[in-house]
Structure formats: structure tokens, C-alpha cells
């Protein structure tokens, strides 16, 4: 089934926050933010800005009736900077004016005096200064200390992985206005209506029931609007409350990039021990997470790094530690993969270093150590229905990896100026929020008397096609036409307390709740049908393709008629259902448990060509065997794989998040921060579903697909590195992602010093 939103998308008729028709008197907000990464605020002077014609007010900490606090996991985040500023781009005030242009002009007239303090920019600096968001955590399995001596080879090293800007095409934004009796309605571009509602209530000093948050859809989120849709919504709501006028706040791209957090940069120290036959015996890693100025979701991101520290491999003795380091950059946040790419990258880097050091093929080490059925992860869960080896073997055979390797070797022999590299990347990703309590979904289903149906769930549509999947699940459960459905906006008045749309879990949690609601409705409808048909047992009644069957025999009774009769019989045609994932649990004190409903597996084959004169590269081919369980919608699922893959390739290659010593982001707009364009996408891309079993905890057996495929991009990094080594076998192995054009060229030629002679 095609994405139900696609018709309005291609006609430009889909409505995002910035497209909502405005109420008269709407004011436009522009944020005034800190120009310095760290300092004490001595004074702020708004007077000149306030004199500009059309400026209606400047909202700052003094206007907050509740608390100046929007922190989620930890209450450590101010809405507006008060006494100190902690990062460049930290909001200080919101200028509200009759037009955005006036507001912008006024922002430029605000004067601020800040006593500058030394900023801490990198995770390692913060670690040295003992600045942490939360205490460090360690996952352990086996006994590394005693097993090092049994290792034939020990490989140690450092690795780095840069952050990533989300570049959701729709920037952050919100539109807020007063409703009757001092209520507030907020249209927000958020993945988490609950977070917006909860934080706004706190800031505005209002009870949650007075605040209605509505999300029609968002123009991409990727995690960037899980926690960070909140500040803008709170500011708009606070301004609306204070000025008693509707206020719209939509960030410009430059503001968005400067003010919002990103994927966490990580720095690593690793130590890997292999046996003589290349089995992983021991693995230790210290991960230094650059969390930014406040917690946001960093503690949860840190947790997922721990969970995925052994990636798709079985490691009998492991010790994985993450330090969440507090720095003076914008609070880093959720981003598709959520700490897993970092944990997976460093192990892969260690394997690459081992392969180079020992002079063996990296694929040999990878293959020998893949997870098998029943292997335990460091957090004690067993790998069940483990498809790691099956994906690898299927990819190897289906895509002719032997032949590819030979072709690449032949090419490299014949060419000096261009070199190719081929890599395989095995994927294993756990599905569920690692915080068990978030694993709940909600759905409200109304059947109208004409037989049409509306559904509201807690999930936010952001292009991932979740609403289409929910509609499919409902239509299948009720056995009626998909044309009878509308999926409504995500709204706190219809669905209370929803978990954020995150962790790839939106379809599973809210789809299962929808099925539960439909099943309850179905039971009531069957009861009415039973009476109408004068049958004995509702269990004998079945609805198939909008027709009612009794004991397998078609009756005259249709869906529409039955709905009408149900209403006449004063039986409810509405149902709200709640789903909580069974089985899962986790004991944080022990760092053990069964946190994931299931795992997703896959293997990606990547071939790249490096232009050895320019230090640039192309991705020639990516071919993927992916474990969808039993996909309920391959169109949507393959779209998720392809999109996540390219985002992952961008992360590992051209997307460079550079922060200078003053805490300033060096590439802070789309002309300097480059994401993949159409020319950058792999020349050949093929995604094939693994012949896999439906998973009972996945919606209709169809495994979650949002995040896992992003990590296939890791394969591109190592394919490039392999190609580079073909040109310069002596190159210094710097395991530092992303592999920018700069790093590529500088590694290809290590004779830089000769330049000046």
C-alpha cells in the first residue's frame, strides 16, 4: 500500500506548522541567543529593540509564571538563559513583532554584556575536568581482566566519530494561541506531544489539561524533534500567554543549525583481544560522549551505546564504558540510531585495525565472530531468532561477493588514479525504548454511523509511513476497505500521555493498540450482528470484506448496515486502547535484563571508488539483505532502508560537524554543512528482504525499520578506507569518522612535509 500522505505531498497540499492559516493579530517570534559558549550574563538591554515600530514585546525569563525549566530526563535545562549562558545559540529572549522582518531587526538591536568564561568543547576535555551529565556506566560480560592473557593478538587504539546535524527539511517551529478560559493550543513540529505539553505546563504555570498540543505531521524529525521541538513550542506559548496574542515561531535554517543539538560526537579508547583463529576473546572500550550543555536525552543515548557496544558480534568477555561529558555546545540529542552507530563504529574500527595489523581480510574476522542463536549480549538477553549469520551468508551468495572482490582486485591492479574498495557490514539492532516505561502505545478509534472510521494514535507521522501502517492494521482487523479511514492529527486532547515517536517503535506500539481497539469494536459489532441474525454465538460471526458471515455463510448483513444497527442498539462505536510491550524488563542496578522485544538483522555489501588525485569518492554499489520479519508494507519499508542508508553514508563521509575552540560551529548553514544530494547516492542500490519469520511482538509480524538501516552506512567508511589502502598501503590508519574529502586526501598522501621543500 502506497503512503496515504503521498497524494497531498505531491500536490503541495500537506500542511506543516508554517502553512497553518494565521489568525488575525498573529505575532512573529525571533529568538535572541547567546553569542558566547560560556559566560555570566551581566546585563541585557532591550530598550533600543523595544523602540522599533511593530515590536510588541520581548519575552524572557522575567515573564515566566511557572518554572524556567524544560529538562526531560534531568531537570537541568532552562528555557531562557538567566544568569549564565552555556553554549552559543542558547536562547535568551524571544522578540515578538508584527512581522518576522521587524522581529529580526529588533534582535540585532539587543545589547548584552557577558563576562566570558572558559568554554569546554570536547568530551575528553570535559572528562579531564570531571564534568559529567550523569555518572559513567559500564556493561560487562565474562571477565576481561583474566582473559587478556589468553589472547593471541591484542590491538589497541583510539577512534573518533563526529556528530551529525539532522537537516529535517522542515525547521523547528510552533504556533500557539489562547483558547477560551485561558487555555492554550499549540501546533508544534514535535515528535513528542507529551513532552511539549508537560514542559509548557511547567513553564506557563498551568495544569496540563489546559494545554492542547496538536501535530498534523512533521517535515522530517530523525530524532531532532523528540526533545528539541519543546523549547520553541514553550516560547511561543509563553509569548501567547504574556502578550495575549497568537504567536508563531519558526526557526530559520541558520538559527536551527546554530541553536539545536545534534548527534553526539564520541571519542574512544579501545582494546581488542583475538584468539589465534581470529575469534574475539576480549573487548574493552571507553566511550567519551560529547553531550553538550545539558542532559536532554544523552543518558538514554549513552545507554544505547552500551547496548550496542558489541554490535552484531558475539563477545564472550566485554567491558563497555560510556562517560557522558558535559560541554559548552548545544545539548546533543536523539538522532536515528541513538548512540548505537557510535558503539558499533568503534568495534568495527578495532576489527579493521586488527585486520591491517595481522594482514588478514577483515571479512574473515567479521564472519568468524557473528552472533549465533542463543549467544548472550553483555546485558544478558539471548539472541533469539538470530539472523546475523543468515543475513551474512545470504548476502555473500545472493550478491556474489567472491566475484565482486575479484572484480575490485582486478580494477585496482589496472588503475593507478582510481581505487576501489569493498566491505560488508553486519547489522544487529535492538527494538524497544531502552527505558522500559516508554514502551506503551495508544489508539482511539471511532466508527461513524455511515460506516467510516477515524483513528487517532500517539504516534507522529514524519514521513516514515506509520499512519499508513496503522491504517493497514485497522483495515485488516476490521476487514473493511482502506478507503473508509481517516487518520487524524496527533493531539493531546484525544490521546493523553503518548510516548515520543522514537526508537523505531511508533508502528509497533500504536499499531498494536489500534488492533486492540479494533478487536474490541469488532466484538461489540459481532454481538449486535448475532442478535440481528438471531444467531446463538457471536463466535460464529465473522466480518470479511465488509460483509457479515455466519458460520462461514455469507449473510445479507453488510458493514454499513451493521454499524447503523449498532448505534441504534445503543452500543458504543468508539474505543480507546492501550498497549504495553510484554516480556521486556531491565534492571539498571545490575545492568542486566531483557530490554528488547526483538532484534533486527541485516548485511550490507558496499563498493566504492576513490579518486586518488582529488581525495574524493563515489559509492558505486550498496546491496543489502535486510531482516524485515514479515514486512507488512515493503514499499514503505524499503523506502526507510534506502533513506536511512544514505543518511548513514552521509554521517560516515561528507557530513562534518566541526566545532572550534570557542565552541562555535564552523559549518553552520546548508551552504557549508553538506548532506548527501542526488549525485551522492549509490549508483546501484538493491534491498532484498531476508527470508525471515514474522515477529510476534512486531506489528503484524513486520519488524521495526526506522533506525536500524542507518548503520549500514558504516560499511561505506570501511570500503573507502580499504580503497585508500590500495593506493597507499602504508597509510596511517586514523580511525576518525567522517571520512571527509580532506581526511581522504591527507591520508592518501602522507608526504605533506615535502610540499614546502
Amino acid at each position, binding site marked *: 500500500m*502506497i*503512503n496515504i*500522505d*503521498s497524494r497531498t*505531498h*505531491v*500536490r*503541495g*497540499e*500537506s500542511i*506543516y506548522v*508554517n*502553512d497553518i492559516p494565521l489568525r488575525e493579530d498573529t505575532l512573529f517570534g525571533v529568538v535572541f541567543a547567546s553569542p558566547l559558549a560560556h559566560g555570566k550574563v551581566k546585563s541585557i538591554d532591550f530598550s533600543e529593540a523595544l523602540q522599533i515600530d511593530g515590536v510588541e514585546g520581548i519575552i524572557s525569563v522575567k515573564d515566566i509564571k511557572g518554572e524556567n525549566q524544560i529538562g526531560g530526563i534531568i531537570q537541568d535545562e532552562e528555557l531562557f538563559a538567566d544568569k549564565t549562558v552555556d553554549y552559543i545559540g542558547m536562547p535568551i529572549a524571544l522578540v515578538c513583532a508584527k512581522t518576522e*522582518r521587524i522581529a529580526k*531587526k529588533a534582535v540585532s538591536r539587543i545589547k548584552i554584556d557577558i563576562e566570558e568564561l572558559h568554554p569546554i568543547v570536547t568530551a575528553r576535555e570535559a572528562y579531564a575536568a570531571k564534568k559529567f551529565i550523569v555518572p559513567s556506566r559500564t556493561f560487562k560480560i565474562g571477565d576481561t581482566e583474566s582473559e587478556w592473557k589468553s589472547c593471541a593478538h591484542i590491538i589497541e587504539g583510539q577512534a573518533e566519530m563526529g556528530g551529525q546535524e539532522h*537537516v*529535517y*527539511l522542515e*525547521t523547528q517551529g510552533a504556533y500557539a494561541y489562547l483558547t477560551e478560559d485561558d487555555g492554550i493550543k499549540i501546533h508544534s513540529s514535535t515528535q513528542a506531544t507529551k513532552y511539549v505539553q508537560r514542559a509548557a505546563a511547567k513553564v506557563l504555570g498551568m495544569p496540563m489539561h489546559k494545554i492542547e498540543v496538536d501535530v498534523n505531521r*512533521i*517535515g*522530517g524529525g530523525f530524532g531532532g524533534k523528540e526533545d528539541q521541538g519543546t523549547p520553541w513550542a514553550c516560547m511561543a506559548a509563553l509569548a501567547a500567554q504574556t502578550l495575549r496574542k497568537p504567536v508563531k515561531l519558526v526557526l530559520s*535554517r541558520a538559527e536551527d543549525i546554530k541553536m539545536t543539538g545534534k548527534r553526539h560526537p564520541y571519542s574512544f579508547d579501545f582494546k581488542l583481544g583475538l584468539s589465534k583463529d581470529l575469534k574475539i576473546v576480549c573487548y574493552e572500550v571507553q566511550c567519551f560522549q560529547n553531550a553538550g550543555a545539558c542532559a536532554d536525552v544523552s543518558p538514554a543515548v549513552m545507554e544505547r551505546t552500551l547496548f550496542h557496544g558489541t554490535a552484531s558480534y558475539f563477545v564472550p568477555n566485554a567491558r563497555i564504558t560510556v562517560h557522558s561529558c558535559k560541554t559548552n555546545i548545544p545539548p546533543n540529542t536523539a538522532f536515528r540510531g541513538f548512540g548505537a552507530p557510535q558503539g558499533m563504529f568503534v568495534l568495527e574500527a578495532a576489527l579493521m585495525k586488527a585486520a591491517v595489523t595481522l594482514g588478514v581480510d577483515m571479512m574473515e574476522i567479521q564472519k568468524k565472530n557473528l552472533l549465533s542463536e542463543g549467544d548472550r549480549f553483555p546485558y544478558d538477553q539471548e539472541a533469539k531468532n538470530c539472523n546475523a549469520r543468515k543475513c551474512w551468508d545470504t548476502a555473500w551468495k545472493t550478491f556474489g561477493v567472491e566475484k565482486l572482490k575479484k572484480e575490485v582486485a582486478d580494477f585496482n591492479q589496472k588503475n593507478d*588514479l582510481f581505487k576501489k574498495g569493498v566491505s560488508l557490514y553486519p547489522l544487529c539492532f535492538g527494538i524497544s525504548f531502552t527505558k522500559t516505561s516508554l514502551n506503551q502505545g495508544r489508539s482511539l478509534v471511532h466508527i461513524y454511523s455511515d460506516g467510516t472510521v477515524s483513528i487517532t494514535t500517539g504516534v507522529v507521522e514524519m*514521513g*516514515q509511513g506509520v499512519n499508513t501502517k496503522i491504517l493497514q492494521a485497522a483495515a485488516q482487523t476490521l476487514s473493511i476497505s482502506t478507503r473508509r479511514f481517516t487518520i487524524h492529527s496527533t493531539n493531546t486532547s484525544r490521546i493523553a500521555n503518548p510516548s515520543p515517536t522514537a526508537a523505531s517503535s511508533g508502528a509497533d506500539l500504536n499499531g498494536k493498540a489500534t488492533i486492540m481497539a479494533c478487536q474490541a469494536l469488532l466484538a461489540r459489532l459481532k454481538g449486535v450482528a448475532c442478535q440481528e441474525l438471531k444467531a446463538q454465538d457471536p463466535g460464529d460471526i465473522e466480518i470479511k470484506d465488509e460483509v457479515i458471515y455466519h458460520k462461514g455463510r455469507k449473510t445479507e448483513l453488510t458493514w454499513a448496515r451493521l454499524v447503523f444497527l449498532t448505534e441504534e442498539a445503543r452500543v458504543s462505536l468508539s474505543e480507546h486502547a492501550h498497549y504495553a510491550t510484554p516480556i521486556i524488563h531491565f534492571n539498571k542496578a545490575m545492568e542486566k535484563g531483557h530490554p528488547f522485544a526483538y532484534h533486527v538483522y541485516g548485511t550490507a555489501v558496499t563498493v566504492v571508488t576513490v579518486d586518488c*588525485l*582529488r*581525495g*574524493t569518492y563515489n559509492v558505486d554499489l550498496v546491496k543489502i539483505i535486510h531482516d524485515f520479519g514479515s514486512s507488512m508494507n515493503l*514499499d*514503505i519499508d*524499503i*523506502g526507510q532502508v*534506502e*533513506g536511512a542508508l*544514505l*543518511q548513514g553514508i552521509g554521517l560516515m563521509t*561528507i557530513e*562534518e560537524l566541526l566545532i572550534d575552540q570557542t565552541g562555535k560551529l564552523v559549518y553552520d*548553514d*546548508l551552504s*557549508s554543512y*553538506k*548532506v548527501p*544530494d*542526488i*549525485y*551522492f*547516492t*549509490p549508483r546501484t*542500490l538493491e534491498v532484498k528482504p531476508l527470508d525471515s519469520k514474522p515477529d510476534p511482538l512486531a506489528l503484524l509480524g513486520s519488524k521495526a525499520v526506522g533506525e536500524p538501516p542507518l548503520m549500514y552506512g558504516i560499511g561505506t567508511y570501511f570500503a573507502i578506507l580499504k580503497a585508500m589502502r590500495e593506493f597507499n598501503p602504508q597509510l596511517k590508519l586514523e580511525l576518525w569518522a567522517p571520512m*571527509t*574529502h*580532506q581526511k581522504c586526501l*591527507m591520508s592518501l598522501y602522507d608526504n*605533506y612535509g615535502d*610540499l*614546502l*621543500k
Partner: protein
Amino acid sequence: MLNFIVNNKEVRTELPPGSALVDYLRDVLHLYGTKIGCREGDCGACTILVGDLKNGGVKYETMTSCLMPLGNANHKHIVTIEGINGDELTPIQTELIQKNGTQCGFCTPGFVLSLYGFCLGDKPRILENAVEAMGGNICRCTGYKSIERAAGAIVEQLKPMGKSDQVQWLVQNKFLPGYFLEIPERLRKINVGKVVEIKDSGCIIAGGTDLLLQDPEKAIESEANLVFGAKEYKQIKFVGNKCYIGAASTFTDIKESKELNRLFPKMADYVKLVASTPVRNMATVGGNIANGSPIGDVSVMFIALDAVLVMKNKGKTREVTLKDFFAGYKKVNKDPEELIEWIYFDTPDGKTLFSFEKICKRDFLDMATVNSAMRVVVDNGIIKKASFAVGGLGPTIRYLEKAAGYLVGKRIDNQTFKQANRIAQTEITPRSRAEYKRSLVRQQLFIHLMNFSPETISLEALR
């Protein structure tokens, strides 16, 4: 008073001609299908079609409405996604849906319009050109392959379309609504006898792609002197042995120019590295030079050709060598109201060789980290003349006189390269990422020489 057609409706406005078209479309006309993704021409979400009378019909090109001055819409046909929509989906919309070419949908109208730019353009209707048409559209969801597949299907559907009367064919085949057939006549009515009139004063605005990005307030508040599309300066002509390029020529004009591609066989490939299709349709040669960018691609090319600018100020004309035109970072030796009319250079003869290189963070739609151009005249294997311009090393584009001077009288071989590189390295002082930029200068110098004489120079020179 500006007067033009938006979709099927004639509009008039007195808003400042230097304001961005996208704001007029969204805030005044409430056409919300045109999205704002970046306001810097780097995402394509605001892509529209701009139709202008040409040879009796209307020629349509895509432009990014965030960087397009409202005044440049005057007397034109502006088409947004709403102007494409009919009761039924068009084949382009259908293919994007069928191939799952849309996820969050925010970029989608821009892609649709870019594909229309491809359908309405003059270039061969092959997938490569459809992709180029979408080179300015960023999608963060799909990974582009599904969009590429949709484009492939559209290429197939367009096969029966002839080279002329595209609009007729597209209307007949339900790609475009019927009103497009009346647009030429309607445009003629509002456009009768009107040409772009260049004034003696005011803020000179050409394509607007730099000004609306760098200083939108100035563009709105100044009295605008709109020069975009001025026919007298939108041409390439030859006078004696000089080649004159009109300053109002767009990058697309340069890329598509038969004459320039004859003189410089790889010109189209070079210009493809500059910005993206919709921006190339707006950005002008004069604008690229006047903004004084230290990485201006056109400036780098023309400095290596020892080009000369012809400028006019209040009726007076003067000439200045391009390499002496740049005074500092984004500063040029020009009165603000002085108009660049022409740029000219010696028409290359059979012995002249030219090469341009640009290396960026991303191969396409990116600013150069370092760009460079070299021109040599080679006779019997000996370099007779050489010039070498490099951008990205400091506040202005550098003309590496000593390195170029050294090359004169030499054969192209590894030794020559090595020595030229040593000299070039003494002439440059990159301010940021110095090691990388020095390396890029070496690599580009090597590539230029290799382009000129692949048999006599080898990779060994770099080791």
C-alpha cells in the same frame, strides 16, 4: 508596479522589487505549496518555474524563489505547485507516488517543479538530464533512489514528445493544465513593448542569488536597479580576436553556449560544478564577479584567461583587468552603482589549453574548498604562455604569477610539475585548513598539467 502572472492569475504588486519572491507567494498569495527549507538556494524546497517569452512561445526554467527578487518576476509567468495541480494527478505526480518518491513530503513540491523544468527544457530527455534538473533539491528522507526511479519512468513517458511545442504536448498528455496554452498571449499583453531598462543609479540586482542571501535587507530597502535579463548584456559575441561575454549571461547561458563549449570543450562539465540547475538559471556572470568572492568559480576561470572587465558608470566606460579587480574579502574596485557590462578575453586558438578544477566537501552544489584554472599555450611541446588562478586560499583569488612564469619555456613533465609546485607553494598562504589547501593546490596543479599532457607526466611526481 510589478505585473506578472502567477499560475492562472494575473497579479500586480507594489512591494519592493528586491524582496524575495517566496515571501510574496506564501504571505500574500497564500500559496503554501512552495516551502522554505533554507533561504540560501541550497535545498530546493522553494523551487518554482519561471516562464518568459522567447521566440513566440514561453520558455520555462526553474529558479529558487527564496533567492529570486520579486522584481525579476515582472512580466513573467510564475508557476508554483498549485499551478500544476488539476483535479487529477499529473503523470509526474503519479510516478513520484507509485515509486514511493515522497516520505515527509516537505521537499516534494520542489522536486515536482524541478521535474517540470526538465520536461519543459531543451535538453535531451534522458535520465542524466532529469537528475541534473533535480541537482538542487535536497531530500533527507528517501535517499533519492525512489525519486530517480520516478524520473526514469517519466523519461520513458516523454519519449513521444517532440523537440518543439513541448507545452502543447504536455497539455495534451495531461502533464500541464490547459491554461498554459494561453500564457504566451496573456504574457504578450502585459509585456507589450517592455524591456529591462537599466538605470544609472540604485542597487544593482541581477539574479539576486548572492545579494538576497548576504543582505536581504539591503535588497528590500534600496532603490533597485534590476538588470536581470537585459538582452544587450545577455549574449556572447566576438570582436576581432576577443570573446565578449555579457555580464547578464547566466551560468546556464554559459553552460549551454555552443561557442564557449567549442572553445572550451569541457565548459559544460565545469559549469555543472557551479551551484545547481535552478541557481544557475538565475546567477549571472557579472554577479559572480561583482560579489568579490574568493572562491568565485567564474572569476577563477576568467582570471586564468587574463580577462578584462568593461564597466559603465553614469555613461562613462572603463576597463580593468579582472585579476586587479579584487581588493579584499568580498571587496572589489568598483563604485556600487557602476555596472559591469562585459567581460572579454583573447579567443583561444588551437594551441591554447585550458583546465578548471574544483574540490569541495560534496562534489556538486557546494562551494569550492580550493578551485583553480590554468591556461597554457603550448607549441611543439613547449609552454609558451601560462596563467594560473587559485581560489579559496585567502581573502581574494590568487593569480600565481611566479609558478605560471616558471612554466613558460618548459616541457610538461614530472620535474616541471615538481618545481612549479614548489614555487606555487611559496606564493600562497592559506588561512584555514592550510595543510589541506596546500595539498589541493599541488593536486590541482598536477591535474591541470596531466590534462594538458597525460603522456609526459605520471603519478610518480606526487609520491
